[in-house]
């Protein structure tokens, strides 16, 4: 099979054809081309090895079912077979999105902590949606993600091994990212093994080092199959395992993790300690579900504020004083809006989302309120209603006030707000 040339036409399964423009890249499984269909550009992934009918039918089925969320660069059309090979069409990745490996290699960096947290939320949400549809991804690794460094938006590619529960298309994957039972071939990839890989990716996203690569692995001259099975399969040890320091990070080698681990709140650390601890490693059904990651990252987002130094930092709600992680400035303990289990720090720029203020909503992206600062009196803060709902607020003296769209609730200790649908909040010190 020769490579396609410019202006070659390839027939699609649904009829019609695409025109090859140029080669974009090549990987172990296939070649990616820039193609055109009806005047619009797409990416074509063409397999360079023989494929089974089962593989083709599975992709066809995934196309019919549609993408779980907008984060997926989901297959859109299949080509016809060319002997034993074929390809599929997907949307092109915009240039502003950088490969996850570029973040790991320090060639790209997040513009803010908020962008990093947003990326973590998006990835967790994408896999929650994928698993809720009854799929598993099966081959999560650093090559599957593109991230916008400023917004934290995420695009997930290589969705061709996605398969319904109980089905596996023979993908091997990369053992740095596999669940231990997949490394040891005791299990085929499934949703539980995906959740382990998700933990690895989230750790790498936040700490820019691998969670299982510390002192032990750094001292191995040649990483053979046997060694890979040991460190990722039969006896993995978390680099921040509180009970076992044999694999702790090495100064001058695991620099990012050593710098970043101390600044994150304990509940984030605990989640990683769990997934890379005895339960997370050995009991696949006890791994942190996506829902839990979403809650944790939402909490982290609720506690992330912009310091006067211009950088973002975390407010620790458990203590009376937080210091900026960048400039060290004391930030006290700001007031919070308490809704359900959420405590949103009432700091200028902070936002409330539909998941906070709308009954039954899971939407953590739609903004419904934003804390603003009075231009003339900077000490006066308020939360603007930017939802379509009318809120009812009760002042500390008992007076009631309706807060329609664009109106502002002052940030004062003791104010309570009824957002509607039985959702109530209170601002407290």
């Amino acid at each position, binding site marked *: 099979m020769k490579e396609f040339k410019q202006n070659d036409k390839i027939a699609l399964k649904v009829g019609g054809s695409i025109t090859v423009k140029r080669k974009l890249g090549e990987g172990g499984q296939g070649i990616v081309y820039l193609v055109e269909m009806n005047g619009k550009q797409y990416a074509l992934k063409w397999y360079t090895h023989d494929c089974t009918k089962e593989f083709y039918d599975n992709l066809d089925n995934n196309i019919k079912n549609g993408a779980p969320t907008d984060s997926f660069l989901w297959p859109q059309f299949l080509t016809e077979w060319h002997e034993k090979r074929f390809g599929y069409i997907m949307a092109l990745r915009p240039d502003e999105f950088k490969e996850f*490996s570029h973040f790991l290699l320090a060639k790209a960096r997040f513009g803010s902590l908020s962008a990093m947290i947003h990326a973590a939320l998006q990835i967790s949400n994408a896999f929650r949606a994928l698993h809720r549809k009854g799929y598993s991804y099966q081959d999560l690794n650093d090559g599957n993600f593109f991230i916008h460094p400023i917004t934290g938006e995420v695009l997930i590619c290589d969705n061709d091994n996605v398969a319904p529960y109980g089905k596996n298309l023979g993908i091997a994957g990369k053992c740095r990212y596999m669940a231990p039972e997949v490394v040891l*071939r005791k299990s085929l990839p499934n949703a539980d093994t995906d959740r382990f890989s998700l933990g690895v990716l989230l750790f790498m996203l936040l700490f820019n080092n691998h969670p299982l690569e510390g002192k032990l692995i750094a001292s191995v001259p040649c*990483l053979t*199959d046997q060694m*890979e099975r040991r460190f990722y399969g039969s006896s993995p040890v978390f680099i921040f395992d509180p009970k076992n320091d044999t694999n702790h990070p090495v100064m001058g080698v695991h620099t*990012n993790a050593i710098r970043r681990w101390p600044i994150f709140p304990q509940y984030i650390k605990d989640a990683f300690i769990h997934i890379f601890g005895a339960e997370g490693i050995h009991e696949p059904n006890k791994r942190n579900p996506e829902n839990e990651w979403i809650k944790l990252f939402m909490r982290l987002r609720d506690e992330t504020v912009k310091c006067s130094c211009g950088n973002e930092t975390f407010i620790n709600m458990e203590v009376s004083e937080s210091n900026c992680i960048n400039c060290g400035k004391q930030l006290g303990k700001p007031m919070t809006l308490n809704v359900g289990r959420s405590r949103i720090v009432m700091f200028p720029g902070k936002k409330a989302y539909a998941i906070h203020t709308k009954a039954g909503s899971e939407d953590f992206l739609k903004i419904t309120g934003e804390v603003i600062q009075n231009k003339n009196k900077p000490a006066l803060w308020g939360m603007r209603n930017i939802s379509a709902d009318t809120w009812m607020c009760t002042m500390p003296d008992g007076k009631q006030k309706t807060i329609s769209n664009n109106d502002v609730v002052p940030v004062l200790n003791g104010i309570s707000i009824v957002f509607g649908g039985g959702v109530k909040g209170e601002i407290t010190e």
Partner: protein
Amino acid sequence: MSILDSVSIPRRTMVLFFLVDTSGSMDGDKIGAVNEAIREVLPEIKAISAENADALIKIAVLDFSSGARWLYNTPIEADQFVWNNLEAGGLTDLGVAFNMLNDKLSRTQFMADAVGSYAPAIFMMSDGEPTDEYKKGLAELRRNKWFKVAIKVAVAIGSDANTEILKEFTGNDECVLTVRTPASLKKMIRFASVTASQIGSKSSGVGLGDDSDADTNQKAADFAGQIKTFQQDSIDVDDVQNGW
């Protein structure tokens, strides 16, 4: 420094070795094609290394004729590597080459990276018979732990190459490829070095049962599989009819 600034994640090293026969019979279009092909494939290897969060690729070159020489006295990172044309002339001292490779496949020599290595990939090209005593050197090389786990591939250039020795070198039949024209030599050098770099520099899929101590080599197996597919795909009529 902002907490968002970071340094690159530590990467292991994967050394790609080129062992090139520069004996007199390689003179002319054979050595010309080798020089061209390696020069052309270097940017691709550089790109594989640059995008790779698992490992960085370094390159080492040994040419052998009457005696043998390392092009540089240490493996060079792919993005720094400059290819100097090799000239052909002299005998085929394969035994010397095996000994010199064996010496460098050691933690104190070429495999000295501080955060460790992946198994190397070793790519040998030859067009003839050894003119020295090679057996002892090959036997010793085959006992070298780094050599044992390496991805190995050999290209026999033309019909005079001793493929039996090359098979002993790679340890299997699949990874010995015979080429008979400059075009197919270039194609094979590109495919073998790109594929060996891709597979060798990534975390493997391991597997093969749940015996965690099993002495497997998934990367070498994956590589052999891809070479086989490539050969089936690229049978060239010209190669059969004409050429060396």
